[in-house]
């Protein structure tokens, strides 16, 4: 059988720790897809690390042809909206020292990225942790602003530094571009072109939130959600459970990562997250306005909120129209699951990790950059 041949070739590449188990799982997926009897069966994951693992280990080469595994808006850097980048650029140009995660430097704003501002003399520091941004502020009297990106798992760390005792120094502020994943799943589930039949949820995000958070989504949309880990076998096992739920027409939440994820998650982390942040509607780059999709500092934390402390007027960046290439970029369609990087005329040509046009080619969690490094959808 073709799939057996593909698997034996893939096994050498994959370094599965348990090839027999991998074979059993792909066999189960073949049977489930045959039972469903139509194609494609489209499922979506929303996590850059899932996509890295799928692409790195070549999983799509051993999946049934009928099964379409799409990466949705699972890259927080990629969905950071243009005006949010503009705010950071304006602050940087006005002499505020910006501390941010490395992937944020090259994300394009209206006319400039933070890297452009840095090249023109603004001070931008790459940090790996919100706590390191606070340390930077302690070592200087200059204003330091942490341009904070990431989903809820990462926002928890930002919340913790806000609540720390002693608190961050008075020259420290936060420009939050944090995003909250559950609401965007609702948006993507409703998109007419996407037709997602199931979601694979990211194990470590669910470590914080717990798997019960997805129950309301399942009730509303009648689409199953399966929490899965990052190992190739974890992902295959998650897909088997997800496609089984699709076949049976029994939408519910299943936790296939019990070694990490509990029903209620890390309550201490959630308490800090929701004490510091509230959800508000906002645009996700290229996707849509997402009600409750943005995490913003609550009013009582205005003292540390860069948006309250500084008058940030981004209009001066609007003097240049976005480049013509930007108009061609289809990052939004890719993150909505409507298109793949191979459908973009810029992919691997004008748009590469060194000269990214769209945010999906900037971040190591972006679909385009991952496919550029590992190859994403091998020709079968």
């Amino acid at each position, binding site marked *: 059988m073709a799939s057996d041949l593909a698997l034996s070739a893939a096994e050498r590449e994959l*370094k599965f*720790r348990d090839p027999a188990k991998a074979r059993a799982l792909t066999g189960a997926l073949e049977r489930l897809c045959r039972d469903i009897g139509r194609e494609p069966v489209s499922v979506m994951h929303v*996590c*850059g*690390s*899932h996509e*890295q*693992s799928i692409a*790195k280990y070549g999983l799509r080469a051993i999946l049934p042809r009928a099964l379409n595994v799409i990466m949705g808006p699972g890259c*927080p850097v990629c969905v950071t909206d243009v005006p949010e980048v503009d705010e950071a650029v304006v602050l940087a140009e006005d002499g505020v020292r910006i501390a941010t*995660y*490395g992937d944020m430097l090259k994300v394009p704003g209206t006319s400039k990225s933070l890297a452009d501002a840095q090249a023109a003399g603004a001070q931008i520091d790459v940090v*790996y*942790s*919100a*706590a*390191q941004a606070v*340390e930077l502020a*302690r070592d200087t009297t200059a204003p330091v602003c942490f341009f904070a990106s*990431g989903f809820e*798992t*990462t926002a*928890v*760390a930002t919340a*913790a530094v806000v*609540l*720390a*005792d*002693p608190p961050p120094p008075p020259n420290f502020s936060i420009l939050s571009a944090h995003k909250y994943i559950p609401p965007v799943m609702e948006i993507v589930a409703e998109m007419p072109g996407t037709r997602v039949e199931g979601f694979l949820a*990211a194990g*470590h*995000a669910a*470590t*914080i939130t717990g798997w019960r958070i997805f129950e309301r989504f399942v009730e509303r949309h009648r689409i199953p959600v399966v929490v899965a880990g*990052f*190992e190739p076998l974890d992902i295959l096992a998650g897909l088997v459970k997800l496609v089984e739920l699709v076949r049976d027409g029994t939408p519910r939440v299943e936790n296939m990562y019990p*070694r*990490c994820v509990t029903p209620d998650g*890390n*309550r*201490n*982390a959630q308490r*800090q997250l929701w004490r510091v942040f509230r959800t508000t509607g906002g645009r996700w780059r290229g996707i849509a306005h997402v009600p409750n999709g943005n995490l913003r500092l609550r009013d009582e934390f205005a003292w540390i909120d860069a948006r309250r402390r500084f008058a940030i007027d981004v209009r001066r960046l609007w003097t240049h129209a976005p480049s013509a290439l930007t108009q061609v970029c289809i990052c939004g369609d890719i993150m909505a699951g409507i298109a793949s990087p191979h459908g973009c005329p810029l992919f691997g040509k004008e748009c590469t990790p060194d000269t990214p046009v769209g945010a999906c080619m900037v971040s*190591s*969690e972006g679909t385009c*950059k*991952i496919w550029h*490094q*590992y190859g994403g959808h091998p020709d079968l």
Partner: protein
Amino acid sequence: MCLGVPGRVVAVHGRSATVDFWGVRRETRLDVIDEPVQPGDYILNHVGFAIRKIPAAEIAETLALYEQLLREAEGDMMAADVRTEIAAAHDGAPPEGSRGV
């Protein structure tokens, strides 16, 4: 960034801990983890914060995945993410304010 990285707790000082990541010792914050940790425990570190304790039965399997990743070449994206997560822990002495809480 989603991956986090596991490490072994060497010492606990208030709201931070010295954690060993394959021979690299760094300070990880304990503000958000939801259970007490002590030397010998394994935690998952994400952007400089321990987000969960790894149950004893899961340690070997968890470490195996990461060890496989860390054997990859420097340019490998997943390996780079893991190294970034190690770098996210605080370098050097316990940060100011972490003691006696």
